[in-house]
Structure formats: C-alpha cells, structure tokens
C-alpha cells in the first residue's frame, strides 16, 4: 500500500501556522494605526496619545503607604543572591522559615505553624496563585515556570493579607512580578554548572512586533539531589509572555507556561514508599486585559486555566515477614496510585479608581474552580469539583498630608462554608518627613481545602482487603481557621543616608487551626493499629514577636542589611494533651546579614549569612532541629564584549559544616557552581 509522503504535508502545515501568525501580526498593526490615533506627521510625537505604561498595577505601592510591612527583593538582589530558586530568597525576609523536604521541594512558611505542606501563605506569580489543591495546598515551588532572571521584583507582604488576596494569604503573601516583555534583552543565555550534578541551561528571546512584545524562555535544570535521599531531579520548563497594546487605553497580557518534572522519589528500605521515578507536569494559560482610561483608573479582567498531572503508581508486595497477621507463605499485592489530575479555571475582575483626589478605591470579585481527580486521596476515587468565590474592596483615604487610612475587606465563600468576612484597618501616620508610624488591626479566615474536608486515603490488598486507612474525613465540616491580628510598625526611609529601617511588633491569635490527629478508624483496618489521621479544627496558637529590617543601600548594587526576628508561639496543645508542635514551629530568634558590593568596576561580591534558632517542622522530639548558621557567597565578574553583556559568577551556597534545615537526619553542606550569563 502506498504510504503518503509525510514531508509536504508537514511543511504545508508549518507554513499554514506561520501564515496565521503573520496574518495576526498584520492585523495588529492595522489595529494599532487606527486605534491609537498616531499617524506619520512629525508633530504626532508631541500631540499624539500614548498608552498608560506605569498604571496602578505596575507601580509598586510605596512601603510607607502600605497597610503592613513589605519587603522588596529587587532584580539586582535576586541576581546577586546566586539563588537557583525563588524559595531560597525568602531567607532574606525576616520572619520566614525555609527548609528543604528534599532537593526539589523547598518548604517556606511565615511565622511557623507549618509542616511538610505549609499552606497558610500565598505565593502569586503575576496574579496567579501557586499552590496545589489536590492534597494539602502546599506551595509547589518546583512547578514555577518563570526563570529567576525574568523576575522584576518579589514583594513580600509580611502579615496576613486575606483582605486583599483571600484565604490563601492567611499569614502572608509573596508576590512575584515578572519583567514585562518590553524590558527584556533580545537574547539571553545562562549556563550553570556545578557540584552535585548541578546543570542548568536557560535561554530567553524577546522580540517586538509593533504593538506586540513577546518573550519566550525555556530551560532545563537538574541536580543529583540530597546525599542519602532518592531525590535527583530534572526540570524542563517553557514560559511565554506577550504584552500587546491594541490601543492607548487597552493593554493585554498573555502568559503561558509549562513544566515537566522528572524526579526520583521514595525511601530506600521503606516498603510502602519504595524508590521510584515520578513524572509530573503543569501547564497554564492566562490572559489579563487592562483597560486604562486614565492614569488614575484601571480595570483588569483576567482568566486563567491551569492543568497539573502526576504519574506515580506502583505496587507493593507484602509478605508475612512484614505483616505478621498474614498466614506464612502468603503475599498481598497493594496497588498504590498517588497520581492526580487537577484542572483550574479562575476568573477575576479588579477595578481601581479615584473618585476624589484623596481617595483611591480598589474592588473586585473572583471565582476559582478546581476539578481534582486524585483517587488515592479521595476514596472511593470520585473526582471533586471545588469552587470558591470572593468579593473584596479597599479604600485608601489620604485624610491629610500626614494621615493615610486603609480600610478593606474580603468576603469569601466556598463549597463547604458560607461567606466569611476578613476586614482590616490600617493607619499610617507620617511622623516627620521620612518617618512613618503604622498600625493595623484585622481578622482573616482560611477556608480548609477539599483534602481537609473530605480526604479519605485507603490502601487495599489484592484490590479488596482494606489494610490501612491513612487519612479519614473530619467528623463534621471544618469551619475556617481564624486569625486576629494587630501590629505596630515604624518605618524610616532616610534618603540622604540611603538607609531604611522597618520595625514591626505583632500579635497574631489563630484559632480553629486544622490539625491532623491520629484517631481510631471506624473501618478497623489491620495496619497502623487501626488508626487514621483525621483533621480536627481545635488548635489555637498565639504568635507574638517583633521583626526588624535595616538596609543601607548606597547604590543599586551595594547594600548592607540586617534582619532580625523574634517569634514566640504559645498554644493550647498542652490543654488537649497534644505534643507541643506549634510552639517550636518557628525559631524564637533568627537573624540575617546581607551584603553586596562592587569593590572594583565589573566585580561584584554578595554574601548572605543567616542564623536560625532551634525549631521543628514536625511534632516528634526526634524532628527538632538545633539552631544553625548558613552562609551563601557569590562573586561575579562582568565581561562585556561590544554590546554583548556577559557575566561569569561563582556561587558557593551553604558554606560551612553540614547541618540540618528540615529534619535532623538530612544534613546538607556546601555546593559550588559557576554561572555564565550572556545578554545580547
């Protein structure tokens, strides 16, 4: 039988696609010419209209006007850190805890109350929430598609901001803002090679087609993981950003990206968690349309679709040696499938406007829907659709030159709980020029997620015999966790001395904390003494403390900073005969010294030294971590060749003795790597 020749069809298809692209670009140019009233007359430069570029959403709120403490890590600092992942950078923020569950799964929490799925802090990338809804809603840093070089700045709001961002921002928010495509070099390449099999390759291209700016980044990262753990990994990522200006008053941002992540998982010698390969993937597309009638007003409508997959199924063969209840010589086969599919759709509208010169109002509404198909987590394997809706608003009133008042609230409801109101009042008083006092009081709710509300993980032998129930659903629907906070702050921004000082004293009282507690299973499974973890919302924790952040920054690339935090956690765990966990979930004392300087032209040095007091990510005493210190160092040399900007840097992370940052038996030590960066 004659085979059709594949080549012509293939090339025709390719041509067809490019034809569509060029056609679209042509249409854009026409739209541009007609929509922006810009002709060819030389005086149009003076008289014509221009798009609002620095709109409200692109302008960073001055820290002195924010209703809370904000730490900004900008691009110079990000680059100078030498960090391979964003999570590492949170060590630079007072009050944060950073651990590594394994080589690719960093854990980040603010003011403790975490475990290996920290879920009380939100991470957003250009408005997209980065958390996994299929299990315990932890932040999955390894699924970040954006390259660290494409990040404009990281704004960390220290303290609850559910008022602005909802349930997930219960204790804090990390906002990652990426560079607009227009502010990106035409071609950038980065190669990192180092110890422990570190091999990262990144490339990014940017091109302008009239009113359309496009940036495409791709990368491959990998390393050999942690010594003693099965956690070597390899990541492939692609990230696309398009900024399109169809008319002076409209701007459209399109973001898309995908990650394929291959890693080893499991524990050698652990029957139920055997060493194995995992493959996960995540992809998303997001469109944000901004309408900018003038510099004071902005309406943003965004839609996001995201898909996540994990393939992780394996079988366990149980013999009577491991499970004495079995008659000798018989075996049981247990099929395990931790795989999942999650599809998310999110629609959000946000409107900023100024009805009067001294008032600015932001309000919006949004809906998010997750379709979760994770049979192992939700017995009997039914797919779950989880929807949450929110309505929010904030009024910023510049009462006088010295008084600024922020009053905001978020109302959020989901399929399990009716609407809860998270309000906040913030008052900023300009004590003197460059000196601001700040007070804030408010309440926040965290809606427990589907796994907390109805998670039921069972393991069957030979498909029929119930052996173990790992998790059981709560006896009744969990009420949202509640946090009541108040804080006082002082901020000095001494422009003349290029110095800023931020001091914050806070109290956070959390109750109805959801906690997983081993409870007898009503199904009496024979393994694990018949117990299954069950969420109970009866914990309370009071967090009190202070944070200090001092930064002297004589130039963009030179700084000397000091961070200090003192966190005291008390809880009611003693009253309910529980082991103290929350109490140790944050170090009582932590401090960092950060320095960056350019002693000679074209050279740059950066050093970060951290002290972290004793803490624990888990409950058992065996899991307690002693205090540790950690130092990261980077030396970079610029080597410009014509208009090509090149930089060669050497980073040594975690200099010094091996120590534990997650559980005592996983100790990590120094890793050195070199990075070559080219920008054309």
């Amino acid at each position, binding site marked *: 039988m004659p085979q059709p020749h594949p080549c012509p069809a293939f090339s025709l298809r390719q041509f067809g696609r490019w034809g569509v692209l060029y056609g679209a670009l042509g249409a854009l140019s026409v739209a541009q010419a007609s929509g922006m009233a810009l002709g060819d007359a030389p005086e149009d430069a003076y008289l014509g209209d221009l798009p609002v570029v620095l709109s409200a959403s692109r302008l960073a709120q001055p820290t002195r006007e924010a209703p809370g403490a904000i730490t900004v890590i900008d691009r110079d600092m990000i680059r100078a850190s030498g960090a391979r992942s964003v999570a590492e950078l949170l060590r630079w923020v007072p009050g944060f805890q950073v651990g590594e569950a394994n080589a690719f799964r960093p854990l980040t929490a603010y003011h403790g109350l975490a475990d290996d799925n920290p879920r009380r802090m939100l991470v957003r990338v250009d408005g997209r929430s980065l958390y996994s809804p299929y299990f315990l809603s932890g932040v999955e840093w390894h699924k970040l598609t954006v390259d660290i070089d494409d990040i404009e700045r990281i704004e960390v709001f220290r303290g609850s901001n559910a008022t602005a961002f909802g349930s997930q921002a219960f204790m804090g928010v990390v906002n990652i803002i990426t560079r607009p495509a*227009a502010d990106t070099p035409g071609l950038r390449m980065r190669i990192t090679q180092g110890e422990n099999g570190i091999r990262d390759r990144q490339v990014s291209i940017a091109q302008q087609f009239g009113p359309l700016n496009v940036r495409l980044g791709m990368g491959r990262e990998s390393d050999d993981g942690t010594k003693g753990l099965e956690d070597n990994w390899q990541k492939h990522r692609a990230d696309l950003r398009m900024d399109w200006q169809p008319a002076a008053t409209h701007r459209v941002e399109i973001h898309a990206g995908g990650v394929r992540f291959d890693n080893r998982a499991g524990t050698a010698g652990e029957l139920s968690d055997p060493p194995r390969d995992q493959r996960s993937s995540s992809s998303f597309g997001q469109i944000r349309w901004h309408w900018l009638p003038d510099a004071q007003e902005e309406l943003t409508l965004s839609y996001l679709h995201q898909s996540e997959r994990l393939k992780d199924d394996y079988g366990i063969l149980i013999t009577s040696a491991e499970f004495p209840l079995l008659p000798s010589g018989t075996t049981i086969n247990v099929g395990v499938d931790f795989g999942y599919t999650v599809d998310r759709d999110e629609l959000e509208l946000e409107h900023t406007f100024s009805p009067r010169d001294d008032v600015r109002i932001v309000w919006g509404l949004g809906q998010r829907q997750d379709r979760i198909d994770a049979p192992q987590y939700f017995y009997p394997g039914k797919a779950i659709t989880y929807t949450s809706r929110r309505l929010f608003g904030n009024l910023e009133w510049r009462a006088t030159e010295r008084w600024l008042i922020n009053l905001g609230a978020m109302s959020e409801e989901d399929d399990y709980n009716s609407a809860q109101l998270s309000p906040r009042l913030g008052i900023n008083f300009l004590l003197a020029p460059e000196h601001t006092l700040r007070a804030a009081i408010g309440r926040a709710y965290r809606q427990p997620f589907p796994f907390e509300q109805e998670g039921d993980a069972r393991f069957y032998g030979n498909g029929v015999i119930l052996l173990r129930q790992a998790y059981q659903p709560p006896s009744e629907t969990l009420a949202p966790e509640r946090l009541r906070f108040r804080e006082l702050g002082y901020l000095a921004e001494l422009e003349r001395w290029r110095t800023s000082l931020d001091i914050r004293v806070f109290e956070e009282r959390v109750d109805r904390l959801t906690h997983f507690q081993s409870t007898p299973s009503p199904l009496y499974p024979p393994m694990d003494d018949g117990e299954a973890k069950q969420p109970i919302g009866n914990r309370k924790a009071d967090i009190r403390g202070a944070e200090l952040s001092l930064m002297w920054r004589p130039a963009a690339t030179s700084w000397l900073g000091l961070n200090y935090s003192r966190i005291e956690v008390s809880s009611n765990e003693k009253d309910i005969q529980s082991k103290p966990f929350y109490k140790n979930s944050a170090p009582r004392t932590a401090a960092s010294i950060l320095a960056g300087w350019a002693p000679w032209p074209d050279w740059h040095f950066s050093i970060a030294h951290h002290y972290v007091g004793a803490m624990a990510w888990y409950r058992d005493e065996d899991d307690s971590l002693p205090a540790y210190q950690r130092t990261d160092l980077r030396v970079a040399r610029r080597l410009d060749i014509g208009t090509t900007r090149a930089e060669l840097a050497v980073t040594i992370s975690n200099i010094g003795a091996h120590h534990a940052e997650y559980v005592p038996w996983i100790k990590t030590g120094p890793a050195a790597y070199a990075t070559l960066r080219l920008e054309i």
Partner: protein
Amino acid sequence: MRAALRLFLFRLAASLALVAMAGPGWAAPHLIIVNSSSDGAYGEASAALRSQLQRTMPWVEIEEQGWEEMAAQRLEGSRMIVTIGTQAARVVAGLSPRQPVLHTLLPSSAYSRLPNMPKSGATVSAILLDQPAERQIALIRLALPDWKRIALLTGSDSEALNLRLGELARERQLEVREANVNTDRDLYPALQRVLAEPAVLIASPDAQVFNSFTVQNVLLTAYRHRSPVVGFSSAYVRAGALLGLYSTPEQIGQQAAETVQKVLSGEALPPPRPPRQFEVAVNANVARSLGIQLDSAERLGNELARREGRP
C-alpha cells in the same frame, strides 16, 4: 535715513491698504490659515489663533483652508499665511508664496526639511513645538534639585538638541550619561547603560528613539532603575513620565496670533522660535511610587516662567 524713509513709506502704504481692505466688498482676506486638519490639536490651534486675532484686530479677515485643495492662486491677494502642522507647511512651502509665511505646530526637525526654504528668513518663519534646552534643564534643576545626573539617548534627529542639553547640564554641574540609538536593537542596551545608576532621563522628540512602541521599554526600564523621565507631551506624563514640559496647541495658536498682529502692523517676520508659553505636568502617582517629593505642576510652571522673566 533712506531706511527710515522706506519704513515710513511702507507703514503708510500698509495703513492705507488696511483702511482700504477694511471697506466693504473686499474679497481677498488678510490672513490665510492653511491647516493640516480641522480636528484635534490642529483645530484647537486654529481656534486660539482666530479668537485672539478677533479680539485684538477685529477688522482682519481670516480664511481657513485645508491643505488638500491648496494651489498657488488660492493664496493670492492675502497678506500673510499661517500653516498649522507639518503637512500644511510642506504644501505651502512647495508653492513658494511671496507673502510672509509663519509655520506653526511642527517640530524643528520637520521645519528644517521643508522644501524651497529661502536662504534668508525674511519671508518664512515658524513657531516650533520643541522646548528650548535651557528651559528643560531649568525645570530639572527646579523640580529635582537633589538629582545630579541626567541621561540622554541620542538618535539622528536629536543630535543637536542633546548636544545642547549636555553642554547646559555640564555647565550646571550635572553629570551626563549618553548613549546612541541607531536601531531598535540598540535601545535596550543603551537604556541599561545610561541608567546603570539612577538618572533623570530626558526624552527627546526623536521618533527613532522615543515613539509609541518604545515608550513601554523606556518607561518600564527607567522605572525599574528608579529613574524619573522628563517627557515632552502631556501624554508622556499620563503614560508614566514623572515630569512633562510642553506647549499646548492653544498656546501656540496664541503666539501665532501675536506674530500675525505684528507682521500685519508692518513689523518684519521674527526668526523661528520655540513656544514662549508652556505647561509643566507632574505624575503624582509615579512621584509617590518613586518616593520623590515634587512641587505642584502649577507652582513649577509659574516659577519657571518667572525665571524666564515672565509673570
């Protein structure tokens, strides 16, 4: 002596002519306005020109014509011609009329490229859109006294202006960072170079460097480098420049009216000039976000005018 006599005779003739023309039945207007468009800025400039003349010289007859149907005979009989916009200026210059011609609402780069320009400027002049370099530097010193560094991006149309800006800035002890932009690809590295340390970036009306497509790159990059931008239009300030220095079509129209008044009263056409009246605009949101304390636009504008010797 002969010159004085000639001037006397000229004025006498002009006065007689004016008297004669003021009479009924006179067909040819004193002034012909040739406009590039009747809409928008062109219409505003024309309206301001006419209303000013009606107040000060109500007897002057004005006829406005579009550039499309322009021909030499349509200009005959008038005493003076004012063009508004480059398109009108090109058409009228192409016809080389004998009357004095005042071109308005066009940049100096367009003015210098008009066809048939006479060697001496006796019959052709202009009120240009370009703000003088002195005024730009004075505004920066006034509004941002703590800023000691300016940044300039130079394309082929802005060489002369930026040379002058650089000279003036250095005279006032300002450090100047400069880079050339010859192609689109040069813009990004040039911005990185001149803004390596925060500086006041002066946008110039050079379409090769600063246009509606590059405005994003310029404003976003400058903002990230915590560098304020000084723009040359109100749209630039709305887009995200910290400060703007520009003249409105209305102000140009008024200045044109004053020139017309002088010429019709017998004075010679003055040489090409920048606009005398101007506006200062401030983007308070950008100022706040950059942590820059600024006076109000009105106070800055008044003070700048006062320093130029105007109330």
